[in-house]
């Protein structure tokens, strides 16, 4: 009796999800909103923007929204794997994006693009393995681990790059890629779509994807089922790191420059997109395509705020409240459906 009261009252995040019974869900608008609200909200937001925000519904602006959504989306679809595995998020994407952007420009200036991509891939794998080993084998808290690797990574990057800005050649392939479009759609948005499709297949159609989801639902059962769970977690962090690396490439092609501040704020906006999309921070539930929808929501919202002349500070406040509200709806819906 007392246990049920507490579960209802507190909805302890750290109770083993084994306590969840696959009960038939009771019809509740809140549960429905937590699962499907994003479709309605995104549609409403876009309609609102089209009718009430000056300058939103122009081809130039839409292209700009896509342009800005691309690196955010690429980071977010990768980080979805870490969130679904029940490890909250990967803060170190900030350092990963900046590292890959700087390596991409700096190394390709000297030794050509293929080698630059290889070096960046090496760095991404290193991030993924360090984070994954600490979280997967040492069972350390993912937030703290990735907070520390963020500072280690940024510190190393600033030390080796001297904090300077790297420029690519003005008419090289990097600059061409960054400015090319098919119609209004920039190449970067196409990269995002390809990434999302590949990762969705990885998540839903492969053994690895199944293990990620199963780990997020019930860690212990996955381990007892004979899985090397540490490797699964390392895999999740490597997917995130490789996605962040590609986002770094895409960002570098935009401006044809790279600097160690490139990734600032991306961890937070990516998390906002993932959570708003309906992927649960409690692990186990979510999809890459939902994240894509969340990316559209966050990008359109940011665009509306920018077009209305609202400053950086308010944008931060709005996104912070958005994250907390979206998680609250998820948490309350879980409680309601467990009742």
């Amino acid at each position: 009796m007392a246990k049920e009261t507490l579960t209802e009252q507190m909805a302890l995040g750290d109770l083993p999800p084994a306590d969840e019974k696959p009960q038939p869900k009771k019809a509740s608008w809140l549960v429905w909103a937590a699962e499907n609200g994003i479709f309605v909200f995104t549609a409403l937001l876009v309609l609102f923007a089209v009718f009430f925000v000056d300058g939103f519904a122009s081809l130039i602006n839409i292209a700009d929204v896509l342009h800005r959504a691309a690196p955010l989306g690429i980071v977010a679809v990768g980080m979805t794997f870490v969130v679904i595995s029940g490890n909250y998020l990967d803060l170190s994407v900030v350092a990963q994006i900046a590292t890959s952007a700087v390596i991409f420009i700096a190394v390709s200036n000297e030794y050509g693009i293929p080698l630059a991509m290889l070096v960046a891939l090496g760095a991404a794998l290193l991030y993924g393995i360090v984070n994954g080993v600490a979280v997967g084998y040492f069972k350390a808290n993912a937030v703290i681990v990735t907070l520390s690797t963020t500072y280690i990574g940024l510190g190393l990057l600033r030390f080796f790059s001297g904090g300077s800005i790297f420029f690519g050649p003005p008419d090289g392939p990097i600059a061409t890629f960054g400015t090319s479009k098919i119609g209004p759609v920039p190449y970067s948005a196409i990269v995002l779509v390809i990434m999302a499709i590949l990762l969705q297949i990885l998540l839903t159609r492969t053994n690895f994807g199944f293990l990620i989801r199963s780990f997020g639902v019930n860690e212990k059962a996955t381990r007892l089922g004979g899985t090397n769970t540490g490797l699964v977690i390392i895999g999740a962090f490597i997917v995130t790191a490789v996605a962040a690396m590609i986002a770094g490439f895409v960002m570098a092609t935009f401006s044809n420059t790279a600097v160690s501040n490139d990734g600032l704020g991306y961890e937070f906006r990516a998390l906002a997109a993932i959570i708003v999309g309906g992927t649960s921070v409690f692990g186990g539930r979510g999809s890459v395509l939902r994240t894509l929808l969340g990316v559209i929501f966050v990008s359109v919202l940011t665009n509306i705020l920018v077009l209305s002349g609202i400053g950086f500070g308010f944008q931060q406040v709005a996104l912070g409240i958005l994250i907390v509200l979206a998680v609250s709806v998820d948490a309350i819906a879980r409680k309601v459906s467990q009742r």
Partner: protein
Amino acid sequence: MTQTMQLGKAADQSFLGRVRSTLARRTEGRGVALLAVILIGVALFEPLVFTAYQVSLGRIALIGIVALGLTAVILMGELDLSVASTLALSGVVMALIPDIWLGILAALATGLIVGAINAFFVAVIGINSFIATLGSLFALRGLAFVLSDEAPVSLVNKDAGIAFGLPLLGPITPRIIIFILVFIAIQMFVSRVRMGREFFAVGGNRQAAFDAGIPVRRRIFTGFMISGFVSALAGVINTLERTTADPTAGSTVLLASFAAAIIGGNYLKGGRGSIVGTLIGAASLGVLQVALTLSGVQVPVQQIFIGAILLIAVTTDPNSLRAVVGSLRQVTRGRAKASSA
């Protein structure tokens, strides 16, 4: 002075046995080891730190105050990522109000409100505290930018700030006195006050604490409000010393205060830990930072050091070590089976 809610095994009454059981109950081991390593390293390479103890003490105080508040939350198995933003926001609030005392009061009230909001989402709604306070980390930083118009706000009453920076007794500045007072207050709270001791119970086993009649939700509120209040206090001190409030203040404190609290032996899962350990952790990080600064090491490299200490701290947690040993054993056993088959 370390408190654990475990009952010891049948007490071994010999002197050595008592020493051993005391040591087993302590959680500060890693903090002491780090402090020893850093002190030896500093004595060999940069003995100037000991003559410039005034600077070191000031640094320890700033990291330590935030880390002490954080400890109250970590003891309950929760985490407060918003401390750095609370520090910045309360500083801005204080500088915006012309009257200095009113400003300080408003800043401290800001901290309490922030703590209560965090606790609301954690205890009532049931969000994981990492996510809830990550949201407030960014929201509050944004609010600090909005309120300050994205530029540092200077204090109206600059004389108060200058007076605050002057040493009172020998090298003891008001900041250090406040730090010591906060340390004593929180130490007394968690070791001598019933409410504070219940923090350990809440962190150790929340279900058991609830069944034993401890008002778990109210304790979580208390913990987050302590953390918010203490970070606001750090914001007030920081603003007084610099005579300006910077909306970006505190970003370096976040990493260092976490490192101090965790290396000091406070288990992130809650239930075990000590305020003394946090003090030791803060002392080692403060000394390390001052030593690195004095030897001309750039800030990015300092961040590598502190980030590495945090990573080591969180992976050498006894729980983590046990997990690694467990999975290693699994691997070797698997190998043995495979080769025998």
